[in-house]
């Protein structure tokens, strides 16, 4: 493909687990990296680029060197990508850019996390800790509840509109045996009947934190042609970071993904409505609602009607998060964002099994971090 800026040639994924015991993050990174490199049909020594997440369990600093040493790699490009849930998608374009810049030829992008019973509280000392926490606002739930309430007030969107997103994710997860909610569907009524956590946000509209890991291998489009698996090309990317605390958000009803997606569509010469798969970051139901609107799939405030008009299953006209999304699959911390990349690669390769979508040529993958703060969008295309 002439417009390809790089290609994903390998994927790896660990089955999510509620808790781990006596397993380190480094061990999980090694397991999932091996899966991705095996899938690419590469020798480990061929990996000369390494992108990793921040504050990997055992080691807050020197993370790339620690992981390179652990994996026996000596990369010529190594870096941390610290964009929360946007880190996975953010890694994919950075890998391509590093290859285009002549720094390396095959990049391993890896995110994983263990999840022990008693994790220590984070030692934050930042404006959120000083100016939000003392007023009773700790954690992401309240931030996304505030975004959801603002959307309801501005557009009259309803609890039922948002619940449809969680129900669709659970329905799609019934076709993914690895999903944490496989065998546990939840319809709109079940979502609305689940406990209120921070109004208007219900328990089942929030991702379940799990342990897990995800990895992809990126190389140049030219080199991808000789790889074991059918490559998936990066056609366009966009990114935008606007704030950290929800109080500082420039808008509560539209986020930085709007500009990130616009750039990704412009770079790839595509439009939102052309996408065969929507692999949209879904930490909370409100995130999907805002992304559908920011993508231009409907007018601002119109996501509820849009959902009623479309079938989000793999057989539907608008397949959305066919792996179950993080709402159905579970959120393995920062690797959660990478689940959307890995599923898009499976679909565009035609390897999604019983949840394979029909036409699978173009996919939009979004990543979102912090409080609708850090946004990355990539458009992927089948070879």
């Amino acid at each position, binding site marked *: 493909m002439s417009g390809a800026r790089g290609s994903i040639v390998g994927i790896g994924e660990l089955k999510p687990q509620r808790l781990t015991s006596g397993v380190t993050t480094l061990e999980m990174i090694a397991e999932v990296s091996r899966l991705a490199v095996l899938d690419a049909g590469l020798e480990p020594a061929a990996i000369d680029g390494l992108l990793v997440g921040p504050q990997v369990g055992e080691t807050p600093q020197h993370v790339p060197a620690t992981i390179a040493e652990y994996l026996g790699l000596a990369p010529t490009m190594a870096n941390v990508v610290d964009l929360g849930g946007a880190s996975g998608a953010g890694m994919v374009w950075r890998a391509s850019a590093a290859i285009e810049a002549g720094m390396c030829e095959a990049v391993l992008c890896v995110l994983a996390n263990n999840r022990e019973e008693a994790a220590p509280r984070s030692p934050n000392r930042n404006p959120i800790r*000083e100016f939000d*926490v003392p007023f009773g606002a700790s*954690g992401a739930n*309240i931030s996304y509840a505030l975004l959801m309430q603002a959307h309801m007030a501005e557009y009259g969107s309803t609890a039922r509109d948002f619940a449809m997103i969680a129900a669709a994710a659970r329905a799609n997860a019934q076709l993914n045996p690895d999903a944490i909610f496989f065998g546990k569907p939840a319809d709109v009524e079940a979502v609305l009947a689940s*406990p209120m*956590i*921070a109004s208007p946000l219900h328990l089942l509209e929030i991702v379940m934190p799990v342990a897990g890991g995800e990895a992809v291998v990126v190389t140049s489009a030219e080199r991808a042609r000789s790889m074991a698996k059918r490559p998936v090309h990066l056609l366009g990317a966009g990114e935008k970071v606007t704030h950290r605390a*929800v109080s500082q958000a420039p808008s509560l009803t539209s986020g930085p993904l709007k500009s990130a997606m616009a750039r990704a569509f412009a770079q790839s010469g595509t439009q939102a409505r052309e996408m065969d798969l929507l692999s949209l970051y879904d930490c909370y139901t409100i995130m999907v609602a805002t992304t559908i609107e920011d993508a231009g799939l409907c007018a601002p405030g119109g996501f509820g009607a849009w959902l009623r008009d479309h079938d989000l299953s793999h057989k539907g006209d608008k397949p959305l998060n066919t792996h179950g999304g993080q709402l159905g699959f579970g959120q393995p911390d920062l690797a959660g964002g990478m689940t959307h990349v890995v599923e898009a690669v499976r679909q565009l390769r035609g390897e999604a099994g019983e949840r394979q979508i029909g036409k699978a040529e173009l996919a939009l993958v979004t990543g979102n971090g912090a409080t609708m703060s850090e946004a990355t969008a990539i458009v992927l295309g089948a070879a």
Partner: protein
Amino acid sequence: MSVDLNMLKTPGPTITALTKPFWDAAAEGRLKIQHCEDCGKAVFYPRPICPHCWSKRLVWKDASGRGRLKSFSEVHKPGHPGWLPAAPYVVGLVELAEGPTILSFILPGTRPLQVGDMLLLAPTSIGGRVLPAFKPVEPRAEEKPQ
């Protein structure tokens, strides 16, 4: 919410020399924010440079204490265990009359809260310190900002 908020074991602010004027004023029941003498904009939270124009000419001024509710949430499952005895309680985003938005604790009014409600500064003892909380302006109440 019948619990004595001042008895809560909630985490306090992590004050620095730069942010101390805000918290000193808060302890006296006032809301003090920075203003930029170059671009004229109000700044919250406190910074060493203006985030709008990067000027260092920032001065502290008392805010009017008036604001508008941009959004709110009734918190049933607090993120910090110290808040559990107070749940459910309300936090909100308050757009100050001066421009910036502050996240704050919202005291109950006589009517159900709505986005767009006008609010007034209501200094409140929470967890052993006075914080700049807010309360709804009651209809026909002749309240003045403090």
